[in-house]
């Protein structure tokens, strides 16, 4: 037992008297059981939203970008807002699985699988927007470095939009591979438990014939560590490059050097909020409260509080620098942002992102499940408005006062946005029923050090 020592002051990460076999049974239960009415209701709603969005996308492609609310002054609006929002949400998964792995945070193990699933599904949503915004989707291959025979010129490697193509595709593919490698032992567990031949076949296929040899585990752990080391700068680079889309332009309100760290903090902020939204429901519905404990939610709330405060500092720094720069265009852009016709969006952003996370200083509030759930939703509304404020308020009053205008979305803009939310939940709900939603192999490896029963036995010996 001595090799599994952990300081008694650390709270247990696995609640109750669990054995290795109990973990297997608990993780396999949602996959092996039947879906209840609640799941089917949620899935139907998500599917309908997805189909509506699909219709809106087809209408856009068939008719043209003119069906959106864009005009000649505001050429980027909901589409890019949604793109940045989804990419931002997609940052929590890799942060949890990679950064917390490097810092040896054991609480990552209960939540990393679902957080990474969320990452992949939300990056998929994000990727849709630039593609459909091209208008002529059939020319989407123009973003790839292809020779002139394809009707393209070589891509322009000076363009931040092209950096984005490389950053997002690297991020999506590396996250997918990281996720799948971690899934192999857990798929193998489902495969070895499966009774129905069809399930056995599917899970053998997905588990790549994983057997759990000592050498395989040694490589597995090394690969996980190196992937974490690679994914950590990668995740920071992705939102940095997304912010370059704005920061390298010459639009007042966009052209600021604070954007990269500010966007990364905002991404982590919204991503953790989305993890909280999803896991608070999942732990209840799938009976995983012993593995995704109140402590996990509390720790995520602390991350939300810190990153929310960083974002708040960035908002204030932006205002200060605009004033301090002495550039009147810059000053006007920020004055207009806060007090112009979009003041309500600015106020919403400030109160959701800067004010609401401050409640988490209170231990009572950050350990309340209901309150955490509400704040997690509020934060994601706020982060959507942050991107809307940055994008639309910087554009709608441009250099020529005669072209000043407002943006109003059409039903197609709204349809596509709601559609991606539907698509995201379709994927996540399917995942929750067919994948091992907890990295059970990893959780088993910390059972003796961080399981409640084992901690009690050990701490009892000391007294």
């Amino acid at each position, binding site marked *: *037992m001595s*090799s599994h020592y952990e300081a008694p002051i650390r709270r247990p990460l696995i609640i109750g008297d669990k054995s*290795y076999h109990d973990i*297997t049974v608990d993780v396999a239960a949602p996959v092996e059981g039947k879906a209840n009415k609640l799941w089917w209701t949620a899935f139907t709603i998500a599917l309908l939203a997805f189909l509506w969005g699909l219709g809106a996308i087809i209408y856009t492609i068939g008719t043209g970008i003119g069906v959106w609310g864009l005009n000649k002054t505001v050429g980027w609006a909901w589409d890019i807002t949604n793109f940045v929002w989804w990419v931002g949400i997609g940052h929590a998964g890799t942060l949890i699985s990679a950064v917390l792995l490097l810092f040896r945070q054991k609480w990552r193990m209960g939540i990393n699988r679902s957080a990474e699933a969320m990452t992949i599904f939300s990056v998929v949503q994000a990727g849709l927007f630039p593609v459909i915004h091209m208008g002529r989707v059939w020319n989407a291959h123009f973003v790839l470095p292809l020779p*002139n025979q394809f009707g393209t*010129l*070589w*891509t*322009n*490697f*000076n363009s*931040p939009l*092209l*950096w984005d193509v*490389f*950053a997002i595709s*690297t991020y999506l*593919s*590396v996250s997918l*591979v990281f996720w799948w*490698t971690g899934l*192999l*032992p857990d798929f*193998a*567990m489902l*495969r*070895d*438990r499966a009774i129905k031949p069809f399930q056995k076949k599917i899970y*053998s*296929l*997905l588990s*790549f*014939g*994983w*057997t*759990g*040899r*000592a*050498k*395989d*585990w*040694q*490589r*597995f*752990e*090394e*690969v996980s*560590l*190196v*992937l974490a080391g*690679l*994914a950590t700068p*990668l995740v920071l*680079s992705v939102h940095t*490059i997304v912010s370059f889309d704005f920061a390298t332009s010459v639009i007042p309100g966009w052209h600021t050097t604070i954007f990269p760290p500010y966007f990364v903090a905002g991404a982590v902020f919204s991503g953790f909020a989305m993890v909280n939204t999803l896991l608070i429901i999942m732990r209840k519905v799938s009976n995983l409260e012993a593995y995704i404990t109140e402590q996990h939610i509390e720790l995520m709330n602390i991350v939300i509080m810190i990153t929310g405060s960083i974002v708040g500092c960035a908002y204030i720094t932006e205002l200060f620098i605009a004033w301090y720069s002495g550039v009147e265009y810059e000053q006007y852009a920020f004055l207009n942002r806060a007090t112009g016709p979009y003041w309500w969006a600015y106020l919403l952003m400030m109160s959701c992102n800067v004010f609401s996370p401050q409640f988490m200083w209170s231990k009572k509030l950050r350990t309340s499940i209901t309150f955490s759930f509400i704040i997690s939703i509020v934060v994601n509304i706020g982060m959507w408005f942050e991107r809307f404020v940055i994008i639309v308020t910087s554009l709608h009053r441009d250099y020529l006062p005669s072209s000043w205008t407002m943006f109003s979305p059409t039903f197609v803009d709204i349809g596509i946005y709601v559609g991606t939310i539907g698509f995201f939940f379709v994927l996540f709900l399917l995942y929750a029923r067919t994948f091992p939603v907890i990295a*059970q*192999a990893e959780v*088993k*490896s910390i059972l*003796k050090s961080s399981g409640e029963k084992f901690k009690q036995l050990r701490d009892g010996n000391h007294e």
Partner: protein
Amino acid sequence: MSNKVVQAMYNDDDILMDAVKAVREANHHIEEVYTPFPVHGLDKAMGLKGTRIAITAFMYGCVGLAFAIWMMNYMMIQDWPQDIGGKPSFSFAANSPAFVPIMFELTVFFAAHLMVITFYMRSKLWPFKKAENPDPRTTDDMFVMEVAVDGDENELVSFLEKTGTVEIKVTEKHY
């Protein structure tokens, strides 16, 4: 020499570790150990060499970086130089700051994917690969140690029985 192995099954990782040490001490050859989760220190106790997969990742990363530099130099500077926004592409050095993001991305892309492909190939993992664990419980809560039979089979079995095993089986080697 016989192709026989003894498969001793354990239900606890600490008992397994002690057993592995005892078997090594008695100079028996451990063919393989199957575990449901990574048991820390098992590779050292078995005498496995460290993995060199991290070194391959570094080399793949260097390849990715070199590829990115070559690609952007060829496309932007050599093959079709353009003057975009008053910033002409006639010199790699002068344009290189704009190339840094893609150099970084391709370094990570090559290192991550090629390392994982190497891992899958070395550990023989791919879709449609048939699993070879001796017992389905080894992905749940059981640990199996395979010891090669070299000499007296009964003596080895009785030796292993004393190491805390819960089940023991003598089979032909499976490959």
